[in-house]
């Protein structure tokens, strides 16, 4: 189903049904439309000429974030006359597969898993970029990111939003009271932890419970430590199964994670012992920091969304984050993160226009101004990012010495990355040894 003009005819259904349909039909007609030649619309002149066409976008972003997305391209719609039908669903990954198989794909989709993107690309479902779009992508995005949307030498997508996972949340107030410095090396971080243990308190708090995805925060820990104990090349081999999952190098990283999250002296501040990790919802994992019952919580920048309303986030607030330090700073700054990629399943002119618009700096700034969003788009003016942790994330992303790697569990086959790895981590935290856990995950890797 490509781009179509929308027929406005009502369905001929008698009685109540017609009335009910009419009531729902009324909602979508308020196309005020700006004057396409006005000064406001000047930045969109290149995308004009598709008045009245509609483009469908499908993604996993919903609710408040979806509102912000719709708002971010409102002016584009008004100026170009292209109508963007955005649809967000929690069942996105499974639904997208069904829609594509059923011959009914959306025009554009935001895919957060490079593995899924590669699968669609290999099945020839995705439309490659035009030469102009390719040049735009190369100038606006770092190569580290684009390689995750490149399949067989062909670029299929560009990053939209992003998140940075290499953060440790802490309380600036509590740190100031105790006279702790924000650690910049692994060594300092462990020293602070030990000092807190000496005061008979637990320094770390962790929450792994997330319904059927229970265990995913632990996989982020492992990925962060893989990047810190091994060169990034080994990380790439690990996520693509170039080295086996039970390789001694993986095992070293996992044990290093265990030295914190399976250490009964270190966890679980505010919640209990190591056993409480898997029963603590990840949304609540870092909340004890606010009550002074826990000092540090490793979680992505988006954790800000789970903090109670009115919490002051910032270097002098109730809570803030520091970059999860490298073990050997000489080897650079490893950054773990994620994000979603814009891909196209159809290539009508209006679809191409929207696709290209989403790559531009204008779009990135328009979305960033609305808050709660960061992107690897280097045309983004950082002053448009308002929230403190998002600003910090942008600094980390734009840092020249940063070595960015995508969340490994999104790169691995789904059977492992969102299956046995989560399950393995839960068993491991609950007492299973490292070797048999890694053997279990290795055995589950699709041949």
């Amino acid at each position, binding site marked *: *189903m490509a781009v*179509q003009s*929308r*027929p406005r005819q*009502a*369905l001929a259904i008698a009685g*109540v*049904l017609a009335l*009910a*349909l009419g*009531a*729902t*039909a009324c*909602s*979508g007609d308020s196309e005020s439309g700006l004057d396409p030649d006005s000064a406001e619309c000047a930045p969109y002149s290149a995308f004009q000429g598709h008045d009245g066409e509609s483009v469908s976008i499908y993604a*996993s*972003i*919903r*609710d*408040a*974030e*979806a*509102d912000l997305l*719709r708002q971010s391209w409102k002016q584009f719609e008004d100026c170009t006359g292209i109508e963007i*039908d955005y*649809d*967000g*669903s*929690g*069942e996105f990954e499974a*639904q997208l597969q*069904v*829609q594509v*198989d*059923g*011959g*009914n794909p959306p025009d554009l989709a935001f895919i957060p898993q490079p593995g899924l993107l590669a699968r669609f690309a290999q099945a020839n479902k995705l439309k490659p970029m035009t030469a102009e779009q390719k040049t735009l992508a190369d100038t606006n995005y770092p190569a580290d990111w684009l390689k995750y949307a490149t399949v067989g030498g062909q670029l299929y997508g560009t990053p939209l939003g992003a998140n940075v996972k290499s953060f440790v949340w802490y309380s600036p107030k509590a740190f100031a009271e105790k006279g702790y410095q924000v650690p910049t090396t692994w060594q300092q971080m462990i020293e602070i932890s030990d000092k807190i243990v000496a005061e008979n308190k637990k320094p770390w708090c962790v929450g792994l419970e997330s319904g059927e995805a229970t265990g995913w925060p632990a996989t982020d820990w492992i990925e962060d430590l893989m990047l810190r104990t091994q060169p990034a090349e080994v990380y790439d081999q690990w996520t693509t199964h170039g080295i086996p999952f039970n390789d001694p190098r993986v095992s070293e990283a996992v044990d290093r994670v265990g030295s914190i999250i399976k250490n009964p002296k270190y966890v679980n501040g505010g919640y209990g012992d190591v056993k409480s990790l898997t029963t603590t919802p990840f*949304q609540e994992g870092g909340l004890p920091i606010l009550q002074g019952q826990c000092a540090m919580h490793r979680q992505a920048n*988006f954790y800000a*969304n*789970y903090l*109670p309303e009115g919490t002051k986030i910032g270097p002098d607030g109730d809570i803030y984050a520091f970059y999860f330090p490298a073990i050997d700073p000489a080897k650079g700054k490893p950054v773990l993160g994620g994000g979603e990629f814009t891909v196209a399943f159809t290539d009508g002119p209006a679809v191409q226009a929207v696709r290209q618009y989403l790559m531009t700096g204008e779009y990135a700034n328009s979305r960033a101004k609305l808050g709660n969003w960061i992107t690897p788009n280097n045309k983004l003016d950082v002053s448009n990012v308002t929230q403190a942790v998002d600003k910090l994330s942008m600094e980390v992303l734009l840092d020249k010495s940063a070595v960015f790697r995508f969340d490994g569990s999104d790169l691995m086959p789904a059977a492992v990355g969102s299956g046995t790895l989560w399950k393995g981590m839960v068993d491991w935290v609950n007492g299973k040894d490292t070797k048999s856990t890694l053997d279990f995950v290795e055995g589950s890797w699709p041949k």
Partner: protein
Amino acid sequence: MTTTTPPALTGTQDVATPVTRAARVRRRLNNPFATGASILIAVLWTIPTFGLFVSSFRPEDEIKTTGWWTAFSSPQFTLDNYQEVLFGRSASSGQLAGYFINSLVITIPSVLFPLAFAALAAYALAWINFKGRDWIYIAVFALQIVPLQMALVPLLSFFSEGVSLGGIELMPAWNLDDQEKFVQVWFAHTCFALPVAVFLLHNFISQLPKDLMEAARVDGATHPKIFRSIVLPLIVPALAAFGIFQFLWVWNDLLVALIFAGGSSEVAPLTVRLAELAGTRANEWQRLTSGAFISIVVPLIVFLSLQRFFVRGLLAGGVKG
């Protein structure tokens, strides 16, 4: 569901047994202990729903920090959750009112279509003699075991690409957009409901006394006339039973709606909206309490007002429940 032997075919002895057995069971259940036990079970079963109900009136902060039972020691009630979920203006907070109407628009035809088709088919299979009748009945019976998940992708491509055989287009793509997608959902629900509906109604209709049909035919009634004036009034309990069954299934359905209607506000039913209500990061789950109650109001009314048909119809209809 137990098998009840059709009275018309059994002897006097058999007719007597179920009555006495039922009477004995009834007598046994009618003592204080059994009454107490059933009340206890009913209460236990209702506690989670009741807790949800209480929660739906509590303020967001309270829901997220304390259990619903604390509402009794420190009562704090609000209608904010309902207000937000029903009439919230931003797309993120509810607007369930609109989805509620979508649910009705999807459900009512999806109940009436299979009822109409199945009643006609069941009558034909039971009382019209034509070649291959038994084979058709067996095929319909067998189709019940095909899980609908298997048909999702083929049906979706049937709508979006049409049907072509060896390069010859037998049916063009439907190309439905926006509100027209309701048609897809009705079509899908009707398809998935028909095998069970035909089977259930066939069992019921075939047990009607043969004398009735013969008498009508002698008086010169045609098949349409027999169906309208004799069969339809007699199968009302079965129709009602299947109607409720189908109504509850369609109203609560998420999968079919998600695939054939999609998530846009123009066609998505309540269930699709409910699944997204907790937010991208699942941290707005206080909305689920009130959302859940709004979504069960209609099924509760339907079930409570028609439940006597439900039990009677299913018992009389046959072995499938």
